[in-house]
């Protein structure tokens, strides 16, 4: 019995060791996010003191700051955080479910559907605002449904989801490119602004468009996260452990696509956030426990930081999506080097 006691203490110790570290890092990420958020409100032209920012946030009137911080910077930063969290969650869900770190929703067709629809609305219908956003949401979900329907018969669904998604994405991308070529000068600028993912037009309406779904869908995803981590063991084993595979996968796809589609509708595609958030979060907290919360935090941090960089770091003001997009290639190289060195699977 005493031997058994030490054995179960070993187990407990191993289990907790990772959990404690993960909790510390999540706390660190949260603090960094709050700090960056505060910084994004104070920094810019003009720079406000933390005291002024605080007064605006608590509802007091500060000449100048009340408008610039309260009406311009605050919705922008809130939108950055919420959209970033959505992209991070959607990305890590797909990557975990499909057991492939490259399989993020902006690569396998879902965002591409939203893009093509938004461009169609802008260039062909001359639409703007809410019509474009809703068109993007509907098209994103419809694209995902089409991919899922095509891929989900028979065995090896995961692999086929990815491949079918790539095929559909390639087709939609040519449609997008075609629409760009034939856009007139004015629509072209609006289309490019959409395609590059931008927070320039952040309003409280835009925040609501993504915050409301986030409040509903993110908790749903957290509820599913234990089943998701079992899916990592492979479908057969997960099924053997009592996970209803098909319903779980459908729910996961639905929730993740919803998050990605609404976020895309509010900001345009902020490329590679969904792709990078999960691996970065896993690298920080290790493979123990659920990657959900850390990925959401990393996503939010990425978007917020990229937006600040895009606004102030270069001569020109770059939209946030261009900054994150430009990180894509270096990030791939980093993955390459790390995998070469550790010899582990991707």
């Amino acid at each position, binding site marked *: 019995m005493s031997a058994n006691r030490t054995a179960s203490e070993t187990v407990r110790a191993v289990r907790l060791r990772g959990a404690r570290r993960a909790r510390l890092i999540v706390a660190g990420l949260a603090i960094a996010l709050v700090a960056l958020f505060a910084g994004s409100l104070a920094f810019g032209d003009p720079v406000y003191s933390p005291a002024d920012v605080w007064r605006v946030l608590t509802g007091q009137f500060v000449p100048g700051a009340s408008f610039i911080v309260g009406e311009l910077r605050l919705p922008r930063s809130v939108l950055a955080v919420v959209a970033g969290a959505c992209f991070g969650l959607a990305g890590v869900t797909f990557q975990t479910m499909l057991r*492939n770190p*490259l*399989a993020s929703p*902006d*690569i*396998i067709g879902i965002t591409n559907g939203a893009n093509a629809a938004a461009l169609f609305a802008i260039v062909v219908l001359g639409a703007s605002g809410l019509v474009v956003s809703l068109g993007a949401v509907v098209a994103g979900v419809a694209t995902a449904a089409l991919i899922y329907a*095509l*891929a989900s*018969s*028979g*065995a*090896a669904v995961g*692999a*086929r989801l*990815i*491949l*079918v998604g*790539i*095929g*559909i*994405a*390639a*087709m939609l*991308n*040519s*449609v997008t*490119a*075609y629409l*760009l*070529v*034939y856009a007139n000068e004015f629509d*072209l600028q609006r289309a*490019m602004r959409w*395609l*590059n993912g931008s927070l320039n037009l952040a309003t409280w309406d835009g925040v609501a468009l993504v915050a409301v779904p986030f409040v509903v869908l993110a908790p749903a995803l957290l509820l599913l996260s234990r089943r998701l981590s079992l899916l990592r063991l492979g479908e057969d084993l997960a099924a053997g452990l009592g996970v209803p595979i098909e319903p779980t996968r459908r729910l996961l796809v639905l929730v993740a696509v919803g998050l990605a589609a609404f976020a895309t509708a509010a900001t345009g595609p902020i*490329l*590679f956030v969904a*792709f990078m958030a999960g691996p970065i979060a896993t690298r920080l907290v290790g493979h123990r426990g659920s990657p959900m919360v850390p990925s959401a935090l990393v996503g939010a941090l990425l978007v917020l930081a990229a937006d600040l960089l895009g606004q102030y770091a270069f*001569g*020109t003001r*770059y*939209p946030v*999506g*261009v*900054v994150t*997009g*430009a990180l*894509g*290639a270096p990030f*791939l190289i980093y*993955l*390459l080097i790390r*995998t070469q060195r550790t010899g*582990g*699977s*991707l």
Partner: protein
Amino acid sequence: MTTTLEAIVGDAVKTRRPPWWLLLGLLALVAAVFLSVAFGARVVSLGEVWTALTTDSESVTSAAVRSRVPRTILAIVVGAALAVAGVVLQAVTRNPLADPFILGINSGASLLVVIGIAFFGAATMPLYIVFALAGAALAAVFVYAVGSLGVGGPTPLKLALAGAITTAAFTSLSSAILLPRIDVMRVFRFWQVGSVGRAENSDTLLVLPILLVGTVICALSARSLNILALGDEAAAGLGVHVTRVRLGAAGGAIILCGAATALAGPIGFVGLIVPHLCRQLVGADHRWLLPMSAIAGATLLTLADVVGRVLGRPDEIDVGVVTALIGAPVFLWVVLRRSGSRA
């Protein structure tokens, strides 16, 4: 791999009569060329086409026909190049989904051309070609490296994903460069969709020698590619220098892709559809598959251009869009047909 093996064994059993298919392909190409010069905003008859091409007639019809000649030539050249490149890439990576577009090789060519225009003031075809070739090679190496990550080496799934993600990364790098340079963007946005509509015979002529070099390299690898289909170890056992053949053949394919992209911009799926179609017709022997694919690729791209002109009247739909709309379903078909095997 097993399918290729079966195909080779199958060939020995039933004769597929490749010469006849080749002849039929040539006839189809001639028909496609005729359609290409006859169709467009103004449709002309067979007789008028003949008059226009053989005399100095100054009529509007003749002018219309003659204006369609450069794009027809370009479609033939680019279609053949992309199809041959597709065959070789599929053989070298032993991957039925390999295509210059899916593998992101086009996007590498595009990126470096943007860099060339934006930072090096490149404005002439020879410079475009240099940058496009360098970009194609860069992207090919990059995608292959990313696709080989992790357990199991470069599976079709991983290569396709690596291609998609590299395309996305390179494309966004391009737009980061383009965004503050409105003037470059105006020129370049026409480059983002493949088209043969802006063809100039002088450009085509300039690139032709490079394409020939690529084609010769691919043609010389034909026999080795047959043996490579048996697997690396078996091929080495049969006396093939696996690495040398791979690098050589892939180099030829990259030259073809880069040069074709320099001429016509990114055109997807020709390199995917044509090899699959031709394998059904002439079998998996590359000595027949390569010429058959060249002819079929030329035919396909010429026809796709005609379709784009007819459907888009009075304007036109770029051939790159047409091939994507035809090609993506074929891609899906290939993916779904392999459903039993784990990709």
